[in-house]
């Protein structure tokens, strides 16, 4: 019932004997000890456990660790480099795209793929793009702004205003 697998997480190989039933999110959090990936609903609804597998966003609570044997996983810990934070992280920081932060790592991982597939998404495309990620604090508006900011930064365009928008 156990199997030895090697998963590359953020460029580092992790080889471990795991039970077949070990979920990828537990492999990441408990075996690789990278706790930036969160477990929210544990039913593939909330998206807090979103990571990238070979560049594609996935809910790691609904994937078995053995299924990603030999594959490349990127978690939120893999976003920043020695150069600094990733544009999506800067976008969330500058636009207050988070309050409690629980959904944030999954939200950012999803948005990394979203911007890769669609570098200049409309507001509607962003909202559909994050439809598998729940945030119970922000009301999503600042998350949308964060993604627009990150998109502009990645494209090298002028950065949008980070001033809060007040509705009269």
């Amino acid at each position, binding site marked *: *019932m156990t199997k030895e697998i090697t998963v590359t997480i953020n460029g580092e190989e992790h080889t471990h004997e795991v039970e077949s039933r070990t979920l990828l999110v537990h492999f990441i959090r408990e075996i690789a000890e990278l706790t930036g990936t969160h477990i929210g609903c544990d*039913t*593939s609804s909330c998206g807090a456990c979103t990571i990238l597998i070979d560049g594609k*966003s996935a809910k790691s609570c609904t994937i*078995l660790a053995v299924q990603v044997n030999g594959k490349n996983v990127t978690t939120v810990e893999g976003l920043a480099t020695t150069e600094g934070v990733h544009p999506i992280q800067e976008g969330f920081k500058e636009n207050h795209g988070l309050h409690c932060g629980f959904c944030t790592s999954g939200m950012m991982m999803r948005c990394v793929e979203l911007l890769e597939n669609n570098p200049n998404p409309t507001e509607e495309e962003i909202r559909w793009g994050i439809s598998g990620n729940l945030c119970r604090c922000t009301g999503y508006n600042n998350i949308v702004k964060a993604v627009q900011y990150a998109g502009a930064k990645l494209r090298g365009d002028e950065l949008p205003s980070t001033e809060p928008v007040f509705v009269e």
Partner: protein
Amino acid sequence: MIPANFDYHAPSTLDEAFKLLSELGDEAKILAGGHSLIPMMKLRFAEPEHLVDLGGIPGLNTVSMENGSLHIGAMVKEAELEHNAEVTSKFPIFTDAAKLIADPQVRNFGTLGGNLAHGDAANDQPAVMLALGASVEITNAEEKRTVDINDFFYGFYMTAIQEGEILTNISIPVPAGKFGNAYSKIERKVGDYATGGVAVALELDDSGVCTRAGIGLTNVNPTPMRAERSEAALVGKVIDAAAIAEAAQMASEDCNPSDDLRGDSDYKRRVIRSLTKKMIAKALERAQA
């Protein structure tokens, strides 16, 4: 939530997979994308002793358009169909459906083959396949057979796939003349199963007369169902508002929805009537474009 113990097998060829399936018998379940099966295993609704993962088998994830048909490998991901311009230019119904199937992360891993083989009338693709007149290729260690989609769904979680067999390919005829297709569903929130869903595919001759109509309904019957009376009400006519209203009324009468948290059966019949109207109009508009 963690599934019950099981043994995991990752064959690298179809032959290896058939060998495993024959050795393990009915203790084994086939794993495609896993986005229906793994949630069921976590809730212990399913406790297979062995999983045979098709993920490492080459050749099951190709999409091609040849000999008048669109061929989709069973392991092609929902997202790959959604983003394949060659497919969606002829079958915008895949764009319609994909947007309503779960969410982007699930569509990155959920497969068309798994969606059908799961045999759940609440899934969206079965109705789409019924409307398009698809057929599925089922393979075992000795041979391949082709099953018309109308003969594929047996009952709740039950399909024509027998022990030792694997669904390997889905074929959809590409009509030669004018054709259009569309899908929509009512859902309580993004990612929910349909309260009701309707897939429509129409073919028209040069004078605008409907020569084929396919209408599939989601989650309003124990198995995915075709609205056959509605289809017959459209064929042979230049489709107008009266024909659309008649077909929609028939679909609402012929479906068999159950009362549940998504609504009572009367409400669901109204949902089906309204969606059938809209989807016939949309498919017609696309056929005429």
